[in-house]
């Protein structure tokens, strides 16, 4: 068992070290370690049930871990005395099912947290809402309700909502899995633009072509472990037969 490997260095934003996690008798994470540096895009891939979504959710403490250590932006996530709200101000998370608040307009969805958590003024928050919506190409949807938007637009609005909190790292949990290919494309474009801006990101995705284009590092999870990791190139020339089979390059 290796000791924590300096996850608090200046450039390390997310660090998992030998993380174990079980749901009852089911071992989901079996000693997972990886690190994400500032400005990096790490893509988690693997079969359903391989533990990739759980690993992602552990970073934002939506799941607690059994052993190991997770450090995110200087917060020791595994510490029971962790200041959860401070962690979540630094971490933005976007879900598969968008989860916009249906009773609020897009603008209200976006300004809610900055106003209530950071205490910035309504006017400032609205100004910011316009800015982040422009970033995702939805500046004209300010006063619409989520149900009036397409799935792709809702997901882009959800990304904008996260951006408004100015997180240091963004987590994306299969954000395009509920969308058809066309809508997927518009969401991925937004994420690509964020990566180009230098946003640190960890994402779980099944879009292999996208992963190849955007990832600085790919982590292939298999049976709760990091089975293979490396630059995006491993997707085209995998070293292990499991990854080869997963990406379908066995041809």
């Amino acid at each position, binding site marked *: 068992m290796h000791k924590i490997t300096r996850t608090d260095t200046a450039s390390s934003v997310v660090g998992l070290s030998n993380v174990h996690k079980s749901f009852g008798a089911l071992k989901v994470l079996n000693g997972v370690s990886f690190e994400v540096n500032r400005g990096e895009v790490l893509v988690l891939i693997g079969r359903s049930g391989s533990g990739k979504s759980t690993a992602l959710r552990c970073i934002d403490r939506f799941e607690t871990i059994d052993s190991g250590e997770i450090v995110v932006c200087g917060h020791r996530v595994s510490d029971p005395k962790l200041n959860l709200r401070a962690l979540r101000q630094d971490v933005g998370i976007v879900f598969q*099912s968008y989860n916009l608040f249906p*009773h609020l307009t897009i603008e209200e969805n976006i300004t809610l947290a900055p106003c209530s958590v950071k205490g910035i003024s309504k006017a400032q928050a609205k100004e910011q809402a316009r800015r982040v919506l422009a970033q995702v190409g939805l500046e004209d949807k300010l006063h619409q309700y*989520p149900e009036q938007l397409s799935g792709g637009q809702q997901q882009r609005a959800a990304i904008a909502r996260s951006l408004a909190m100015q997180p240091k790292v963004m987590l994306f949990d299969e954000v395009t899995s509920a969308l058809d290919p066309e809508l997927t494309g518009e969401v991925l474009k937004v994420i690509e633009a964020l990566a180009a801006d230098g946003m640190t990101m960890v994402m779980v995705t099944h879009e292999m072509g996208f992963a190849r284009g955007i990832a600085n590092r790919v982590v292939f999870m298999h049976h709760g472990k990091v089975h293979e990791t490396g630059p995006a190139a491993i997707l085209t020339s995998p070293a292990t037969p499991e990854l080869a089979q997963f990406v379908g390059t066995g041809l």
Partner: protein
Amino acid sequence: MGGSLNANHLMFLGYGALWTIGLSLIGLLGGGIAGFIVALCRISPSRIVRLISTGYVQLIQGTPLLVIMFLTYFGLPALGVTVSPLMAAGASLTIFVSAYLGEIWRGCFESVPKPQWEAAEGLALSRSQRMMKVILPQAVRIATPPTVGFMVQIIKNTSLASVVGFVELARSGQIINNSLFEPFLIYTIIAVIYFALCYPLSLFSHRLEKRGGPARIELEAA
């Protein structure tokens, strides 16, 4: 003795009906406030608070309202606390309604999709901010039809207050019948008045349900 039904009798019934409405409002208001607290306790992160509130709900739901009325009106004076019929009836209804509305509303809170709670958590909102700004507005939409429907139960249950001498609609009917001996006629009138009070509420509740109540709650993908 005897005589026939006249305007004075009808006035008396009308007065009783007003008290039925008044008592219902007391029960709805008192029970609504207490029930809201019960609902919050039932979903509290603290295990002990959940246990206590669950015990309260089960205790009250397992006790007939009639017995609660007897306990407050006849039981409390035995302990040295005298209560008027209005106080006894109002307090009993408040207790009774709080347990049922608390349980209805707990269900409404919990039927706000879990990802909504998570999204609010992910945005670093505090528990009270999540409750007030994200969950409650959605729960209210879900809660409106069953709450309006439950008001019908409250109105009908106020008739039990007649046993502690509170003169509401049922009791005023009894009193008139004692002098007129026209039970079929008088209790028919009473029934019609109750129906006239309850039916619009039932209708309204159904309409709310059909309109989908929580219009903007999307069904979750996955």
